[in-house]
């Protein structure tokens, strides 16, 4: 298991989140969503705290986390890259762009590069269909991206 210690204040916040949902086991998915927002990802410790608070087994929490692809146990990179896979972007070649990012960084979707610099995730329509295909790096939005542009984008952050 990863050797990460959570800051106490954050843990209190997490407990508050659980309480907001009445520590109700049926609300586990919502709690995990909120927890992911809080921490950016769901490390083992976070799942253990949630299990404890909600009075369900850690195995069950882990089962839910691994079942839904939008939950991640890996921290995002310093520069999180998101590729829109909405319909408009998809038909305009988002997948090729994604492949190019994966090839350059040698990671899969949901993973982070070893140096912790970049991570790749996929999004549903981000509401910028006119610019399709769309890629975001951190807060910055790139439109009409072709596979050839990928190298240049990455270079901005190296």
């Amino acid at each position, binding site marked *: *298991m990863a050797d990460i*210690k*959570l*800051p*106490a204040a954050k*843990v209190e916040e997490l407990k508050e989140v659980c309480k907001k949902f009445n520590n109700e086991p049926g609300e586990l998915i919502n709690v995990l969503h909120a927890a992911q927002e809080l921490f950016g990802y769901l490390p*083992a*410790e976070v*799942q*253990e*705290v949630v299990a*404890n608070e909600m009075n*369900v*087994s*850690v*195995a*069950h*929490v*882990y*089962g839910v986390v*691994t*079942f839904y692809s939008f939950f991640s146990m890996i921290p995002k990179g310093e520069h999180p890259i998101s590729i829109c896979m909405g319909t408009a972007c998809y038909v305009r070649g988002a997948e090729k762009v994604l492949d190019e990012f994966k090839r350059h960084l040698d990671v899969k979707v949901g993973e982070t590069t070893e140096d912790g610099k970049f991570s790749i995730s996929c999004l549903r329509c981000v509401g910028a269909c006119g610019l399709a295909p769309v890629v975001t790096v951190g807060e910055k939005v790139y439109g009409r991206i072709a596979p050839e542009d990928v190298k240049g984008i990455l270079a901005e952050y190296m």
Partner: protein
Amino acid sequence: MEIVQLTIDNKKVVVEKGTTILEAAKSIGVDIPTLCYMKLHDTNFENKPGGCRVCVVEVEGRRNLAPSCKSTCEEGMKINTHSVRVVNARRTVMELILSDHPFECLVCAKSGDCELQSLAQNLGIREVKYQGEKNKYKSDESPAIIREMEKCIMCRRCETACNDVQTVGVLSAINRGFESVVAPAFEMDLDHSTCTFCGQCVAVCPTGALTERDSSSKVMDAIVDPNKTVIVNTAPAVRAALGEEFGMDAGTLVTGKMVSALRKLGFDHVFDTDFAADLTIMEEGTELLGRLGKHLAGDKDVKLPILTSCCPGWVNFFEHQFPDMLDIPSTAKSPQQMFGAIAKTYFADQLEKKREDVVVVSVMPCLAKKYECSRDEFKVDGDPDVNLSISTRELAQMIRNANLNFEALEDDDFDQPMGESTGAAVIFGTTGGVIEAAVRTAYEVHTKKTLERLDFEELRGMEGIRSATIDFDGLPINIGIAHGLGNARKLLEDIKAGKSEFHAIEIMACPGGCIGGGGQPYHHGDVEILKKRQRAIYEEDKGKILRKSHENPFIQKLYKEFLGEPCGEKSHELLHTHYYDKKKKIEI
């Protein structure tokens, strides 16, 4: 009661509303094959995910086949359980399951006892048309249990056993689709989880995905080593089940044949764990009376109830789940560990052997004992009191390896001194037995009177939680019994809340007690098998001349020559233990 009438395979059947088609069929002797479904009547084990669809039947007038384990009977239904359509559907389902299953039957530990294998045989599967990608998982080997998830068919029986029955919650389905599998949190090894090693997941797994760690070849290595004296001891529940492995009826007592087989296998001394069970009663019973006396005298530091501690699955459970209550269980070691401690001191001295040259092997109905004998506190300078613990099933395998004709073996007797035991020790093998044995001795020690009635029917049975009050000559003693860890949890929560009226509680991790242990011959969902084993155990008790632990002459001799007093200094050193807080602390 509302009633529905229907026909199954042209036979009329009347059942209570709500009955499943599967159960209705069973009531008129029609067997429908099942795979994921399993129900252990009279316990709270029921696994009904309705996922495999092996149990489908045809309902006249319906377009789709119905899974009989999940579908309830309706008025006027006409059901066919083996039409061509049904059989073809079952075969397709099987072929799909087998397309992601390793073809390792020849070398699989479960071969011959595997529900998937026998179903494939019954359906006459001779080739698998769908050849898909096969899953690979990292395998997990703890001191007690091996997980080989390539062989998992996702029936989820193990989850039901661990989560619903035992309330340990180690296992969960993880991932989705093709990748899905049952695993502990973060796919850690069982060893690092809160697993109790009760083995109930192994007991219900239909395939070879969950099996015990097999130590039988290590046992054979010790036997052939000329420098080692190998001592074996057999737990009470083993003799009531071993025969099943050789086609004998459940509940056939095979004590004599078992001793004979062990001798033929080459063990130097064939002893009985029951001897150590009598010793456990001496220690636990004395501890109970001591705590009771102090408590009644008003000593607030002495807590009641006292909980039995002879089941290592249960010990693991409270160490993980109730670490703030470690002072309530008796400190007495389990019979297995008492046996080892005496064998490697008292008996080794008699043999004039060094403890390292003595190998103690125990044959247990239990997988938690494999873990137990690996615990550090049960070792002296790294040498374990019990070297190897094998299950009833592993012993059966050793007997088959040696090609012994088990049924034809002559009865033989245990060796002395550690082969003598009383009826009180035999009943350790079933739920209710340990506390009944303790009552027989504690009553006589406390009242100094002879117990007239030895059969405490009020303590026997299969109900998950039972209670009775026994009159100790004017002093009413309240006794509680729980088997299955979920039931144990309820009694513990009561104690925690200060609501418990009990003076003493017996707890066994496995449903039925050790007769239903994780190392016993597979029951395949038939609870009658457990009941027959239970009856056999009480029968053996009845047939014994001595039925109270303190009357065992070799136990008396052991105290006189070696131990001194029950709960005395030497006993404390050799026969008592302490418990550890194993609750995982979340670091912040």
